């Protein structure tokens, strides 16, 4: 019999898409026993080189195959002191509902010469690949293991990935294994400790599981931190000077270089010195070409931030929709940190695919007809995936409402990247009046370029300025003091929260949306609608429980010089940095697990010792509510 190759993807839809592309549509579908979603697709494919023509079974898993858990005697909540979970033995076992899938892989491996892993090309995918390998080797110890490297499910790309397999990245798989173990131990230890201790404190928490997660808590911490800043805020009065000149029928407002000051007597004295001087002198007239830069190629974090701002979808929805668009082969892999396009990628070909679109097809045509510019390059490259871009065109009536929004955003953003910057002419006038400086700016937009397709950016011409000459003297029409008040910051919005998580190393681009969803689900935060209609914004406000937990943990470490609160991002950030070290091969999985456990164990001991701090905080915020 001809050589047989077993291919395993991360999801059934990817398996089907890859099978379709490799077989040219001619494949047989077989159901597997015990799982209605996973199918085996059989066809022939010429892998070239040493492999040549082979028969192929393409199948899939459904995410992770295995889970990590404590041994049976540690599973009951009362079975052991929560602190012992830092060391308790753990076991990796195939999830019960995944057993038929694992069996299918073992069976198929028996008749296969090689295993090609087609899981998504990211850390998580690498680990799932290693789980698949374990099963395949259990079925056939001598099976050869390869990995297909791909970042979208467009036909030519998939075929090339099949011809140029690489090896599984062991380091990345180890990093995920380390993270899974740490999440289990730290999460379970703190969740049991705080749940058991706090349930008894107030009736509102009876029967409630108060879960802890090393990403969840810093995420909650950001929300609470902003909430308290808003609550504690005290408005203050400030004063400033504004100068107005009427000339050529136009009213020009000059802005004070000092903006405003918080001392009325000083501002009054400064204004008087302006008035005494009578004439203002033009010290600078600067006319220069200016431009508004086209956006950078799209990353996951940017997609989530922009998406929740412009598309009115929360980050988790955006990621689900993007995932669906990827699985259907319309856009590239939506989990990427890369904001630079590889030189090898044929951008023009991708642009041409957008020709049929009734909204931006014409714009795509104009790009190819001469307006095309090589995209700007950002500073990030995860070496795994290109920036998010459309890989094929899809008519909007084939998409649901949310898919339509996200696809349109991805397509417009991509075309904007390949366009020229918007060009304009800016004018800057500076005057010296008494001891004070003032300035005014004018802008004329000359060429809109990328703005024509990227409807999310705004850049408008200002009122045209009258003529000024350097050195000329004039008497301002008006010079007055104005008064204002400082205003509190707003509650945290989702794009801001994602920005904070990204900057502080909480979660990865792939998991941020999950952490945000988790703290909503746990009722640590609630959503508040600010404003109405198109300008409305969703804000995060912590619940009483959310505030109590953060205050409690902050108090636990209060006064301890070397400890940081679990509500702060520092511990998790360190852990995340260690994951990167595993990926680069400078640290082993065991080292990282030990170091990180030591770090959290210390906080755990403090928490146990000062558990009254947590209890007091819960009483303070939650007793009031129930009475």
């Amino acid at each position, binding site marked *: 019999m001809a050589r047989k190759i077993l291919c395993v993807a991360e999801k059934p839809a990817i398996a089907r898409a890859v099978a379709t592309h490799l077989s040219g549509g001619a494949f047989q579908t077989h159901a597997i026993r015990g799982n209605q979603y996973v199918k085996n697709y059989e066809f022939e494919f010429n892998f070239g080189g040493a492999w040549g023509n082979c028969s192929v079974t393409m199948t899939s898993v459904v995410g992770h195959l295995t889970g990590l858990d404590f041994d049976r005697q540690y599973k009951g909540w009362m079975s052991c002191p929560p602190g012992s979970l830092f060391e308790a033995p753990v076991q990796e076992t195939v999830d019960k509902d995944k057993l038929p899938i694992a069996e299918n892989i073992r069976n198929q491996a028996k008749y296969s010469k090689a295993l090609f892993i087609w899981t998504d090309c990211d850390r998580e995918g690498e680990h799932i690949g290693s789980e698949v390998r374990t099963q395949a080797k259990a079925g056939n110890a001598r099976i050869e293991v390869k990995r297909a490297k791909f970042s979208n499910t467009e036909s030519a790309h998939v075929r090339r990935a099949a011809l140029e397999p690489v090896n599984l990245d062991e380091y990345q798989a180890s990093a995920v294994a380390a993270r899974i173990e740490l999440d289990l131990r730290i999460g379970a230890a703190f969740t049991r400790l705080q749940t058991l201790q706090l349930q008894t404190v107030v009736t509102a928490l009876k029967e409630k599981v108060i879960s802890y997660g090393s990403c969840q808590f810093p995420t909650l911490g950001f929300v609470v931190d902003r909430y308290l*800043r808003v609550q504690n*805020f*005290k*408005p*203050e*009065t*400030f004063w400033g000077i504004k100068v107005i000149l009427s000339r050529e029928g136009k009213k020009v407002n000059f802005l004070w270089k*000092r*903006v405003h*000051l*918080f*001392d009325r*007597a*000083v501002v*009054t*004295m*400064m204004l*008087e*010195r302006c008035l*005494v001087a009578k004439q203002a002198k033009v010290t600078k007239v600067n006319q220069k070409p200016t431009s508004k830069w086209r956006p950078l190629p799209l990353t996951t974090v940017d997609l989530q931030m922009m998406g929740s701002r412009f598309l009115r979808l929360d980050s988790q929805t955006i990621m689900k929709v993007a995932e669906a668009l990827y699985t259907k082969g319309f856009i590239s892999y939506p989990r990427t940190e890369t904001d630079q396009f590889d030189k090898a990628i044929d951008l023009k070909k991708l642009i041409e695919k957008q020709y049929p679109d009734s909204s931006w097809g014409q714009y795509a045509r104009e790009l190819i007809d001469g307006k095309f510019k090589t995209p700007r390059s950002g500073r990030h490259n995860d070496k795994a995936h290109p920036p998010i871009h459309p890989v094929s065109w899809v008519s909007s009536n084939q998409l649901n409402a949310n898919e339509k929004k996200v696809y349109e955003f991805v397509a417009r953003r991509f075309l904007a990247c390949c366009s020229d910057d918007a060009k304009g002419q800016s004018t800057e006038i500076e005057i010296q009046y008494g*001891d004070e400086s003032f300035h005014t700016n004018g802008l004329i937009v000359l060429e809109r370029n990328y703005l024509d397709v990227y409807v999310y950016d705004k850049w408008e011409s200002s009122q045209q300025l009258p003529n000024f000459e350097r050195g000329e003297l004039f008497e301002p029409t008006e010079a007055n003091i104005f008064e204002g008040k*400082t205003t509190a910051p707003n509650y945290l919005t989702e794009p801001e929260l994602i*920005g*904070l998580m*990204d*900057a*502080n190393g909480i979660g990865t681009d792939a998991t941020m949306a999950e952490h945000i969803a988790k703290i909503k689900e746990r009722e640590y935060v609630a959503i508040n609608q600010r404003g109405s209609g198109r300008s409305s914004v969703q804000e995060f406000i912590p619940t009483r429980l959310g505030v109590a937990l953060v205050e409690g943990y902050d108090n636990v470490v209060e006064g301890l*010089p*070397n400890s*940081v609160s679990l509500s*702060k*991002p*520092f511990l998790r950030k360190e852990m995340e940095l260690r994951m990167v070290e595993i990926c680069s091969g400078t640290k082993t999985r065991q080292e990282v697990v030990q170091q990180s456990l030591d770090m959290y164990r210390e906080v755990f001991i403090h928490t146990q010792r000062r558990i009254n701090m947590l209890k007091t905080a819960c009483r303070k915020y939650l007793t009031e509510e129930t009475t």
Partner: protein
Amino acid sequence: MTSPDQIAAQILSTKSLSVAQPWLNAFLSSSNTAQRNIPPSALAKTAIFRLLASDIQESLSKHRSCVLPVDIHDPTVQERRLQGSIPVQVLDIEDIGTSLWSQIEAIERVERGEAIHGREIVRTIAVGEDPEASENNRANNNPANGAASASGNSGYGPHRLILQDVAGTMAVGVEMQRIDGIALEKLAIGAKLLLRNPSVARGMVLLSPGSVTLLGGKIEALDKPWRDGRKARLLEKTAGVERE
């Protein structure tokens, strides 16, 4: 032995300060017993150092040409120019370009051992590592904003100072143009300035690089309580704003 006149002359020529005889004599008698063979120039340097740490009401001569007019704060005088060089010491400094509340928030970040770089929150306290190494790291990574954010001040100013002359007369000074060295974290309470022919408008001394020479120094007994009590004073002021 070094004559008091020699030292006084040297202080006058290098710092434009005319030292009070009694203070100088006390200084010389206290140092003579311990250090007999010190060259005059080194002794003058020590004297200047002590002088900058002293209260100028005791250490400088109260000659008529080097004091502020007693009605200096008179707000009805639109503008006048004072003649000569007038030594003063700083009793208070405020950043009037930054709201009290954001100054309080900045102090609280420092209390928590945090600093903010853009959106990133950074720990300024080293945990379980060589404090010196992390200090170096910070200095290397953030030479520009490290110092300012670590001490909790955005420090844009302008600043409003309370100044006191040798006779004890107090005046408000306003930093009209940016002066290097006038910043919350750089200027100590008790630091000495030399005002050179300054203008005074509506009772406020106008400070600019041309009218101010920074001599430095600090009065430890004033500086420490001032810094320790700064947050409480800011809080008290914001409460006052609310009542208005």
